[in-house]
């Protein structure tokens, strides 16, 4: 069942969303060559707990950390580690989720570490654009698959591909709720969007082929062909006035260069 949230609930979800956006803004400022992903994770956990919130990922099906930090060919669910050091030219996807006052916010960006290759820069730009194109399709009466269709259209035009094995999701009082939100497909299918629905929309885009595999740690998903992969995510509410990005920030960060 897809839950529609009241205006008061959406305000609480905005508070959770603003928190994860603020945390991610701070992490983005720390990303530099030589920094370990565990260092980023520690900052995120401290900030989330200081705000009276709870890291959403920690303990989720046994996930051991507050953030996911996925470098280069890692698509998603990279586990932070003191031995994973960011290098000049890497791209790193950072995914943060927290629950504040019982409601969840979920947000991710992929960042360039120093100067990156032209292909990497294009991948980041196109993936982020595809997220905003998807968000434009969020309106009362639209369909779930309109969102994925917008992503697929945009990224495939650049020769990139959409990951199928993982999808966006409804979000609210749990991190993963109905419905699933794939990033591909024909438009005009799936459940209709209604006022108050909240979706985590998250295109995962590979520079090469779409196939991914999960490593032996049970979490880290990497591209099968070793190509670069990017991931951007916003938590978005469906309102009568159109999409409301609950994880929006005052100052945009991201991979635009």
């Amino acid at each position, binding site marked *: 069942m897809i839950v529609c949230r009241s205006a008061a609930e959406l305000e609480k979800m905005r508070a959770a969303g603003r928190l994860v956006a603020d945390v991610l803004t701070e992490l983005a400022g720390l990303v530099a060559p030589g920094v370990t992903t565990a260092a980023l994770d520690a900052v995120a956990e401290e900030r989330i707990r200081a705000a009276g919130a709870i890291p*959403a*990922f920690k303990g*989720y099906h046994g*996930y051991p950390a507050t953030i*996911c930090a996925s470098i280069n060919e890692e698509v*998603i*669910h990279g586990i932070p580690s003191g031995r994973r050091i960011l290098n000049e030219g890497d791209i790193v996807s950072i*995914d943060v*989720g927290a629950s504040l006052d019982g409601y969840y916010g*979920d947000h*991710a960006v992929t960042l360039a570490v120093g100067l990156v290759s032209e292909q990497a820069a294009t991948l980041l730009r196109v993936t982020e654009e595809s997220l905003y194109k998807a968000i434009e399709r969020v309106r009362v009466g639209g369909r779930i698959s309109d969102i994925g269709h917008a992503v697929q259209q945009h990224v495939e035009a650049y020769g990139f591909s959409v990951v*199928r*094995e*993982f*999808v*966006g*999701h409804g979000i609210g009082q749990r*991190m*993963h709720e109905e419905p*699933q939100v*794939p990033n591909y497909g024909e438009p005009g299918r799936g459940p209709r969007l209604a006022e108050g629905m909240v979706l985590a929309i*998250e295109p*995962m885009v590979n520079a090469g082929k779409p*196939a991914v595999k999960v490593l032996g740690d049970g979490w880290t998903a990497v591209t099968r062909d070793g190509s670069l992969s990017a*991931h951007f*995510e916003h938590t978005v509410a469906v309102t009568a006035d159109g999409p409301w990005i609950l994880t929006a920030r005052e100052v945009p960060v991201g991979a635009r260069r």
Partner: protein
Amino acid sequence: MPERSRRAAGVVTETLPSAMYRVRLDEGPLVLAHIADRIDRNFVRLLVGDRVRVELSPVDVGRGRIVEKL
């Protein structure tokens, strides 16, 4: 944090009576799948070796529903 999709691609390895099929998923497991009404109505014939997309049951991990011929 993305959720694992309940849809997966695979190859038909065996056709069984009453529109049931055995499908080897690309991820590894073998599942028993029936054909979705909406594609059965179009008289889509599935043969061994066809690539299909399967919607997996959230309840029974070994079962699914074929929703698309790829």
